[in-house]
């Protein structure tokens, strides 16, 4: 089954195309990694999937339905920075999604509801290996731990699609390998579809069941901004069963 279908996707800012002519059919449960040089529209592509920006042309279908025109709980996101709320503890950061769902006016849960939400959150916090710092604030966590928290926070609402925008770009190589293991495991467990933008080719092939490269196919040396980028390679990565 197709999780995401993209038809003739095109995005321009003030008549300057950033990405053009993208057609894709992504199977449900894929781990799609997206690589390419800086400024060739990888992040723009992710923002389009997120609904944070609207396409100039073409359309995106998620499970057969047109993509909503704003971000929503069916698509989770982890950014490279600013992914967690600095004013909330680890536990509160993860509980927050449940509070948004269950308490439309106060945005807070109390009593039995709160305890149930905390149980659910603590399960996820333990799964990403942050059980020992559940009361800490993000500022006291290392970069890797903050990204673990961001992942737990994004998964609490069980999104069908998880978007990762260079999530491990700022981490040390050793920590990065731990994070690869973590995200692979969570992906296998949940069966969600993952889109991950990265600079790191090795990471892209290690994690992705499908590796997309973005580049400009047409270049005008006198007007380097005249053409947008598109998908130049669409490669098969590892097999889902062999992953992990």
């Amino acid at each position: 089954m197709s999780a995401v279908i993209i038809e003739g996707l095109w995005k321009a800012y003030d008549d300057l195309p950033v990405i053009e002519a993208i057609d894709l059919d992504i199977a449900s449960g894929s781990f799609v990694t997206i690589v390419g040089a800086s400024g060739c529209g990888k992040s723009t592509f992710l923002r389009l999937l997120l609904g944070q920006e609207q396409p100039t042309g073409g359309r995106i279908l998620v499970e057969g339905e047109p993509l909503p025109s704003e971000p929503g709980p069916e698509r989770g996101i982890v950014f490279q920075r600013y992914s967690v709320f600095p004013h909330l503890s680890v536990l509160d950061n993860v509980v927050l999604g449940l509070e948004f769902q269950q308490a439309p006016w106060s945005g807070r849960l109390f009593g039995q509801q709160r305890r149930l939400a905390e149980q659910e959150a603590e399960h996820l916090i333990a799964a990403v290996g942050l059980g020992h710092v559940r009361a800490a604030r993000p500022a006291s966590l290392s970069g890797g731990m903050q990204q673990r928290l961001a992942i737990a926070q994004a998964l609490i609402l069980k999104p069908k699609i998880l978007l990762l925008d260079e999530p491990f770009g700022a981490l040390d190589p050793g920590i990065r390998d731990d994070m690869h293991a973590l995200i692979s495991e969570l992906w296998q467990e949940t069966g969600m579809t993952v889109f991950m933008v990265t600079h790191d080719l090795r990471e892209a092939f290690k994690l992705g069941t499908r590796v997309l490269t973005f580049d400009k196919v047409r270049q005008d040396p006198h007007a380097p901004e005249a053409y947008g980028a598109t998908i130049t390679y669409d490669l098969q990565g590892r097999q889902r069963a062999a992953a992990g």
Partner: protein
Amino acid sequence: MRRFINRRPGRQVGLLLAALPFLLLTAVYLAASGARLEVNPKDKLLPAPSSFVEAMAEMAFEEDKRSGQVLFWADTGASLRRLGLGIAVATLFGLTIGLSIGLFPYVTSTLDPFVAVVSMIPPLAVLPILFITFGLGELSKVVLIIVGITPFLIRDVAFRVRELPEELLVKAQTLGASSWQILLRVAGPMIFPRLIGALRLSLGPAWLFLIAAEAIAATEGLGYRIFLVRRFLAMDVILPYVVWITLLAFLMDWALAKLSRRLFPWAES
């Protein structure tokens, strides 16, 4: 020899340096006062410290014969009441309107230019209007403080909200937050420490407007007293009052800073 920009005083030297300007000012005053009093023992411009003690003992511990009040504390109470009320209302407006302008593009378009223009009105220029509209009582003085500092608070809060990383607002949306929930749980709590910062900057102007309003029309208050006794050249009352006002303002500022560190430790780094 290290560069001057790299040389730091130790703790004790630092304290000494901090005390130096105060000591210097005191010494200059005492010398000048002594010199004048030597020429004319009845001089009122630069009274001796003993005159301050006498005058303030009368103001702070003895009941006024006419009103039956202890003037110093009555003045302090009246001024702090006006100031507190004005600042509280201004903070409420600053927070709610500022958040809305910062967060909702439709409110930005509607109110941002308006607030920008209103904030350029010199508050003292509208004081006569306030007296005419609200009378000479308490209300007009409180309203002057509100009019004086609210535009700044609104604009600062709105600016701080726009400064929040876009990522966090997007993240909240992917957690299913509504606009209201984002205001309540994300943008609001995140700008609280900034609001306290803005409030600290507003203390100076708030006192300015308070004293100005009291100077023009009041029957009690720190500003009223200063301007009243000016007629008798009563520097022995004016100077201690000024020191007292300064001390109160300084303590408020200190308390707000302390409160901010206590309530929002995450905002420190």
